[in-house]
């Protein structure tokens, strides 16, 4: 009696399960590693928000070839240990097909050995040059290299006949990578760095460094950091009455910076992704459509304007989506198709990957903008 009932239950279950799987194929799992909390949350939070928004949108539109996407987000807190634990969970427990993130170069470098070994494609949202140089088989990235941003600035300086500069970089991953590139490219451009200062990520007063710079023969100042440090620098520059041109990095190309730096922001020149000047782009710009769409969409969801950090996650999702559409959802196929991506016009720029190039952007990814009247002006 009992045995019979058991058999009935089992067969019913079996039928139900089969039916279920026939109706909806299991979702494609995408893992995400973002520094949602901790010191790099200015990267991780918009990235997570964007990724969630994009996945919802793709699913609402019917998914990829009828398959839904499932996004599994893990907070790395900007700590390599947590990033490695997280990536192991994504790969071994959730069995994801591809990974986006991490947000920071440090986290990315920490998880590269794991994804390389597990053979899972990863599209990092961090900017460090060493992520894709040398090229690693399974690792791609969307964030523009600092190596592309620096020449934009130096080009502009050369035009202004600026030869001696002071640099002020933050002592975290972003700043130290920027400093490296500044020093490297200065030689090529024949620009002399005569004052090389740093500040801590939590510092609230940079007048000492700026006073020192003021006393030097620098003709311009380059500050490399992410909010809020550069805002303090901008304010301190104004307080000290320093009139030297102030250049900054793409790390501050967000509305937030202008809000924080207040009057100090006026006149600052920086390389930026096109996202902040989307409306000023010419109609022929291939990125314009994606940019406007992203900015609007983000604002609708989160009530603030989307910035280019969120854009890294947007690009990562769209690149993976494209790869799956072309070649299916196995990790190896996603990797191969990612590498074949040609001229995908996204937020960060127009991406073309190849077997030698997993960064995919040219210096064209950056435009030079100036802050005027609390808004962005495209410098041509």
């Amino acid at each position, binding site marked *: 009696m009992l045995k019979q009932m058991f058999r009935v239950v089992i067969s019913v279950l079996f039928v139900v399960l089969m039916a279920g799987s026939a109706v909806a194929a299991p979702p494609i799992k995408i893992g995400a590693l973002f520094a949602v*909390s901790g*010191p790099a949350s200015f990267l991780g939070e918009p990235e997570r928000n964007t990724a969630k928004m994009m996945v919802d949108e793709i699913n609402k539109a019917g998914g990829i070839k009828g398959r839904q996407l499932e996004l599994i987000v893990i907070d790395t807190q900007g700590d*390599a240990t947590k990033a490695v634990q997280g990536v*192991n*969970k994504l790969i*071994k427990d959730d069995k994801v097909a591809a990974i986006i993130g991490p947000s920071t170069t440090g986290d990315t470098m*920490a998880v590269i*050995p794991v994804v390389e070994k597990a053979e899972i494609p990863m599209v990092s949202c961090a900017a460090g040059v060493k992520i894709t140089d040398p090229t690693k088989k399974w690792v791609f990235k969307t964030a523009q290299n600092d190596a592309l941003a620096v020449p934009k600035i130096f080009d502009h300086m050369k035009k202004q006949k600026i030869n001696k500069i002071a640099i002020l970089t933050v002592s975290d*991953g972003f700043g130290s990578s920027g400093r490296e590139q500044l020093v490297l490219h200065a030689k090529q451009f024949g620009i002399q760095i005569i004052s090389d200062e740093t500040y801590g990520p939590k510092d609230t007063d940079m007048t000492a460094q700026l006073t020192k710079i003021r006393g030097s023969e620098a003709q311009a100042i380059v500050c490399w950091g992410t909010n809020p440090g550069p805002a303090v620098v901008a304010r301190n520059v104004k307080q000290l009455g320093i009139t030297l041109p102030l250049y900054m990095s793409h790390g501050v190309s967000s509305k937030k910076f202008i809000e924080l730096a207040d009057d100090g922001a006026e006149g600052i020149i920086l390389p930026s992704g096109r996202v902040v000047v989307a409306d000023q782009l010419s109609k022929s710009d291939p990125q314009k459509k994606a940019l406007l769409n992203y900015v609007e969409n983000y604002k609708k969801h989160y009530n603030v304007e989307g910035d280019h950090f969120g854009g890294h996650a947007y690009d990562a999702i769209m690149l993976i989506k494209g790869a799956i559409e072309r070649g299916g959802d196995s990790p190896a196929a996603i990797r191969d198709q990612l590498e074949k991506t040609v001229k995908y016009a996204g937020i960060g720029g127009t991406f073309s990957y190849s077997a030698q190039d997993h960064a995919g952007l040219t210096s064209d990814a950056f435009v030079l903008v100036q802050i005027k009247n609390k808004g962005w002006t495209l410098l041509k």
Partner: protein
Amino acid sequence: MTKEKREILIFLIFTLAVLITPLFLRGSYYLNVLVFIGINTMLAIALNLLLGYAGQISLGHAAFFGLGAYISGILTTRFSFDPWLAMIISALMSGGLAFIIGFPILKLKGHYLAMATLGFGIIMFIIFNETVALTGGPSGLSGIPNIHINSLVFDNDLNNYYLIWVITLMVMLLSINLSQSRIGRALRAIHDSEVAARVMGVNARVLKVQIFAVSALISAVAGSLYAHTMTFISPASFGFNFSIELVTMVIIGGLGSIYGSFLGAAILTVLPEFLRVLQDFDIVVYGLMLILMTMFMPGGLISGLRLIGEAIGSRIKRKSVSNA
């Protein structure tokens, strides 16, 4: 059964459990979690020797963990040392540094000691960050080689599991031995009343410094193992937050209990898994947990378990008596 025999039995059961666990977790992600639990257990035990036994607080222990990781990482990547040799050197150097700074630091008591160790931790963190040429600075040091014994390379979860847990078990055994010896008693005596301990002939000053050095040495071994299993290190893993996390492990597990340290390390390592549902609430839960544990369960979870165990034990005893 005497107390000693019971201790030995518990350790043997624990060892057996550790050795056979991978059989049930083949290829699972939890093997990787257990690797980190092993490293954190070593760190928690190291801190517990200082905090739980000698009663001396350290809010900068992540610095010794980081020192072990960085010395090992730098020696192997920049000077191609063998990882084992690098581990020994990093342990001795960290222990040595602790011994030197231990004399002035451990003269301080209570809140002042807390603040001085915290300051030490921050200074070390700044050094990891700023000596870019040596440590790679904030973006980290990559390409650290795996440990190997001849052709056996510890580059996967299973191998790393056994490597780390064999060393963790050794650390546990040695710490249990130490805690039950005259040194362990002297440390606990210092904890309860330093004055009385000194009057009984315990050289509190030297003993505190010695245990500080031992604690730093174990932390550095853990750091070195961490560096060689992760193959990448960056300063963010060795900051003030991690020092606090270590203290939390010891408190939650149970001050002065070696198995408590394991329990605390295990809970804090897997906790983010469970708190992930809470998203950003985890930091709040974390703070609440620290406060509530200190207020209502100062003996840590291990004392709670012990109470439950005793309650069950006495019930069984009662039953067997009434049956007889």
